[in-house]
């Protein structure tokens, strides 16, 4: 498949089309609104569904093939602030707290980007490891903690670390993902069979509505591009590509499939815009949300969803031939 075919395959899938539709809705100032309670319900559905399916897949998989990729993924997210912070601080000339805050977001992951990556693989017919949802849950936390530690070290100011860990762990995304995994592990494949009509079949339809809302949320921030300055815009496009290459290579070294390595690469490339902002806002209140939220939500997220995913898949061909 040529690069253009891959881009087309991704952009023309219903979830991504709905995301673009959401962007269009904002641009034409449509009165379309997804009520907040519906948005909340959809996100609970998606997170629980990913968790349950992942848990059942772990039970169905033979042996402990997931331990090495899990360890590597956690280590990788923990290390990421060590290079993103200096880049932001010294190349981007951000303040210590702003650089730390942005680094925390890029060291955490985006669940929706993960979903888009697996949707893409399914359209391609490319197999991937079933335990990947467990990786998503594990990769949300370490990078945020390391970034906060860095800021604490450098500025000598104490950030409420324990509180932050609690906020992320008890936050709905990690809680529901890990909780769903447990439900899936305990219920096993037989349990999954019972909830399949609800949690599996309607999944992509629900994802479409969710992405419609995300398109509107992301595009409402497009006007902030000017405020964050050219460096952060370039960072928001380039850093994910570098991170994707690191992630894909790490997956390759762990003996994962091409599909699995591509998903790991996409996760490493993604930036959190739900768990991280809520945590950082409380832990580093003096950091400017205009920087970290705009970069993660309005630049990196749409980039990954549209161009990034087919690009990273093409790049994974460098390691898997």
């Amino acid at each position, binding site marked *: 498949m040529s690069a253009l075919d891959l881009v087309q395959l991704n952009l023309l899938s219903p979830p991504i089309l709905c995301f673009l539709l959401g962007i269009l809705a904002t641009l034409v100032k449509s009165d379309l609104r997804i009520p907040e309670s519906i948005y909340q319900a959809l996100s609970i559905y998606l997170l629980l569904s990913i968790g349950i399916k992942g848990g059942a897949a772990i039970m169905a998989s033979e042996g402990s093939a997931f331990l090495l990729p899990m360890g590597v993924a956690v280590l990788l997210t923990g290390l990421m602030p060590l290079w993103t912070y200096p880049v932001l601080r010294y190349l981007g000339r951000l303040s210590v707290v702003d650089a730390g805050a942005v680094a925390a977001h890029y060291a955490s992951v985006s669940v929706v980007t993960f979903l888009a990556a697996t949707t893409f693989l399914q359209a391609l017919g490319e197999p991937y490891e079933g335990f990947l949802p467990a990786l998503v849950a594990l990769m949300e936390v370490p990078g945020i903690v390391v970034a906060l530690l860095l800021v604490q070290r450098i500025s000598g100011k104490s950030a409420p670390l324990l509180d932050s860990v609690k906020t992320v762990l008890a936050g709905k995304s990690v809680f529901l993902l890990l909780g769903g995994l447990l439900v899936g592990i305990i219920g096993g494949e037989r349990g999954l069979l019972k909830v399949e009509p609800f949690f599996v079949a309607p999944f992509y339809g629900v994802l479409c509505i969710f992405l419609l*809302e995300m398109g509107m949320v992301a595009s409402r921030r497009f006007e902030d591009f000017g405020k964050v300055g050219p460096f952060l815009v370039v960072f928001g496009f380039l850093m994910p590509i570098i991170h994707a290459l690191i992630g894909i290579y790490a997956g390759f070294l762990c003996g994962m499939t091409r599909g699995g390595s591509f998903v790991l690469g996409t996760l490493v490339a993604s930036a959190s815009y739900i768990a991280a902002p809520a945590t950082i806002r409380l832990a580093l209140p003096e950091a400017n*949300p205009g920087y970290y*939220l705009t970069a993660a939500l309005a630049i990196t997220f749409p980039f990954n969803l549209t161009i990034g995913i087919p690009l990273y898949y093409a790049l994974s061909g460098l390691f898997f031939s």
Partner: protein
Amino acid sequence: MEPLPGMEKLKRVTIVAESVVSERIQEDVLRLGAKGYTTTHAEGRGSRGVRASEWEGHNVKLETIVTPEVAGKILKYMEDKYFQHFAVIAYTIDVEVIRAKKYR
């Protein structure tokens, strides 16, 4: 002006806060001596356009009736803890209440 017969003067403190700190503020208010509070969802606009959790929840308006002493403590605490970095405003107004014991 003297209060109406059977009524007593107290202070009503109103705090409007972005959702990310609203739960903390509810705990703070009780810890500083309020006996209860009422919250309502609020929307609006102020000097801080940017909020981290803008599609995660509404602003919250909290109202509590307290003695002038507690009202002073709450306002001072809001100033020390929240005004600098969070979208929070707070103010008081005189109110006349019946069965003032409930609020002490």
